[in-house]
Structures are given as structure tokens and as C-alpha cells.
């Protein structure tokens, strides 16, 4: 079973046990043990690699010694033949044949060991990647467990034995409630302002026709019924606010 499958099984297993920590200490210990086992295995693989590499080196050393011997014997064979000593040449050639067979054997051995070294290195790299993933997964499981333990502690602190988990839904309701309260407060303040402040008084004065507002509909119609006023420009409105607005936006001035 892969480690992730084990972790999921642990989650599922504990999910049914009400009131229990999601992943209990034993489960974490099992995972930690697995991690330690893998680490030991990795160390063994590394030792094995060192051993194989040493073997390869020895084999290569033997190979190069045999190569020297082969050159040496080749010289002897040539020398014996040059002297016409057929018997000696044959004797050396027999030895040379042994050397060449050994040389071939060492070459085969080096090739085989190189293949082993290659696959061991790949296996070690894979195990290392898997180990660091495993470490992170265990770390995450531990953190998740700690978070849930903490959240459980928080809810217990809030409401004692009858613990209820405070959720985002509760917060959303609080936000809505606060917004409503704020809205109500704002409305009340506005009403108060209208009743006691200038707003209400001005409105009543204007309704009584006591405040002249030449920008209102009647004022505008009056301006157009009296065209001279329009020619003399904004001044005719007599409203200082409107005059200020005109000088602000009128680019022809």
C-alpha cells in the first residue's frame, strides 16, 4: 500500500470514531517508523553502491594490468618469431591467449558493474525523492492534526461542554447583522440631522417661498422669458454657486 493510501485509510478509520483525534499518536508513530525504515534502506543502498563502485575500480585496474601484459606478450611473440624460435613463440602465444581471455572477462565484468551502478543510482535518487515527499506528507498530516486539535480546543473554550464550532457561516451572519445595525444607525442619524439641523429648516423656508432659488424650474423659465438676462451670461442667474461652476468648466473663458 502506498503511503498516501495509508494516510487516507487512517483518516477514514478515525473519522468514524467520534471524539477522537483525527490521526492518533500511534498512527503518526507508524508513519514515522516507515520513514525511518526507508531512510535505513536508503543508507543500505548507498553502501551497496560504494561496494559496487569499488569492485568496478578493482576490475578496471585488473583490466589495465592485463592490457599491459598483453602488449608485453605480443612483443615476446614477435621477438621469438623473428628469431625463428617457433616453440617459444607458441609457448608465449598460449599465455597471451589466457591473458586475452582474462581481459575479455574483466571487460564484461566492468560493463556489468557499470549497469549495476546506473540502476543503483537511479533507485537511490527515486528513494530520496520519495523520502522527501513522505516527510512533507507526514508533516502535513501532523499539522492538520494539530490544527484540528487546536480548533477543537477553541470551540470547547467558547461554549464549554456543549461545544459548537465557530464557522464562516456564523461570521457571515455577524457581518450581515453589523451591516444592518450600521445601516439603521446611519438612517437614524440622517433623520436626526433632518429634524434638528439646517436641512429641514431650509426645506420649509423654500416651501414657504422665503428662500429664492433661481436655479429651480421657475427660476430657469424666468431667465428665458427675459432674454437679455441670458445675453449677459451666467451673471443673470445671480447664483454664486452656479457662477463658480461656470468658471470652473467653461473653457472659452
Amino acid at each position: 500500500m502506498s503511503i498516501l493510501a495509508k494516510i487516507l485509510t487512517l483518516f477514514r478509520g478515525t473519522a468514524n470514531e467520534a471524539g477522537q483525534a483525527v490521526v492518533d499518536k500511534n498512527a503518526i508513530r507508524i508513519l514515522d517508523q516507515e520513514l525511518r525504515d526507508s531512510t535505513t534502506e536508503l543508507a543500505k543502498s548507498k553502501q551497496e553502491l560504494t561496494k559496487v563502485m569499488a569492485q568496478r575500480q578493482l576490475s578496471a585496474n585488473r583490466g589495465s594490468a592485463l592490457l599491459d601484459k598483453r602488449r608485453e606478450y605480443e612483443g615476446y611473440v614477435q621477438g621469438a618469431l623473428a628469431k625463428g624460435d617457433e616453440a617459444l613463440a607458441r609457448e608465449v602465444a598460449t599465455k597471451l591467449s589466457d591473458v586475452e581471455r582474462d581481459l575479455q572477462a574483466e571487460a564484461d565484468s566492468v560493463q556489468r558493474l557499470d549497469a549495476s551502478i546506473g540502476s543503483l543510482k537511479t533507485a537511490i535518487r527515486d528513494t530520496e525523492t520519495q523520502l522527501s515527499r513522505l516527510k512533507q506528507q507526514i508533516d502535513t498530516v501532523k499539522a492538520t492534526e494539530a490544527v484540528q486539535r487546536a480548533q477543537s480546543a477553541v470551540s470547547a473554550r467558547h461554549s464549554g461542554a456543549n461545544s459548537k464550532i465557530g464557522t464562516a457561516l456564523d461570521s457571515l451572519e455577524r457581518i450581515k447583522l453589523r451591516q444592518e445595525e450600521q445601516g439603521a444607525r446611519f438612517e437614524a442619524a440622517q433623520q436626526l440631522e433632518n429634524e434638528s439641523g439646517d436641512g429641514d429648516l431650509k426645506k420649509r423656508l423654500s416651501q414657504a417661498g422665503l428662500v429664492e432659488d433661481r436655479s429651480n424650474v421657475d427660476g430657469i423659465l424666468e431667465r428665458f422669458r427675459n432674454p437679455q438676462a441670458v445675453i449677459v451670461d451666467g451673471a443673470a442667474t445671480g447664483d454664486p454657486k452656479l457662477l463658480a461652476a461656470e468658471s470652473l468648466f467653461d473653457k472659452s473663458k
Partner: protein
Amino acid sequence: MPLRTREQLHHALAEAFGAAQVATLDDAEIALQVVLADAGDLEVTLVASEHQIYCSTPLVTAAQVRDRAAFNDACLRLNTVNPLSNLGLATIDGEDVYVVFGELSADSSDPQIVEEIRMLGVNAIDAIELLKPYLVTA
């Protein structure tokens, strides 16, 4: 070893969220709680371990969900567009609880952690507002 002590983390969070909003939880791990005033006093739990800082906040209890299958579907879809945080399912005190969580590398800066927590609050409130149609109407 974690890159921060509990005290350092507490200090950084208190600076950002106000001392009254941050509490240290009694635990073997480095566990802290931040109450987000801007997010309706949402409680975010923070656990710092060797490799990562894990932030989580309960979204809604499974008991409050009307149609679990439809809710799960909506959560998975929402998850793909949720910035920084993820939606998940956890068991707290034997009760299934949907959570919004985020993970940071342990070597993240203080501002990054603060940003993560704020984002978690915003995402949680956004998510529950969006997912409200799937909940039991009280």
C-alpha cells in the same frame, strides 16, 4: 526546527491584527489563533511545523449542508478559482466540518503569512456567501 519561535510568530501577528485578536493555543506544536475583526470575528487557526505553516478556518459543519453531493461539487468548482486558499473536509471532535485552508512554506516572510490569513478570511466569507443556497435554511 521551525524557522520561527511561537513568540516571534505571535508578535508578528499581533502587529498586524492587534494583540487582543491573537491567542497562543496550548499545544505541543506552534499553534496560534487569530480572530479577524474584518471578517465577522472569523477564527483562523495557525500551526507552524518544520516545513510549513498551515492556516485553517471552519467554513460550515456538514450537518448544516442540505445536499452534500451538490455542495461538494460546488466546492470543487469554487476551489479552482479560489486564490491562495483551498476548500477541504476535516473531522473536528468527531464532526465533519468543511474548512478553508492554506499552506505556506516555513520560510515565508511575516507579510506573506499576514496576507495568507487575510485572504483566508476573505475567501471563507466569499465562499460561504456563494455556497449559502446549498445549506439548510434555518
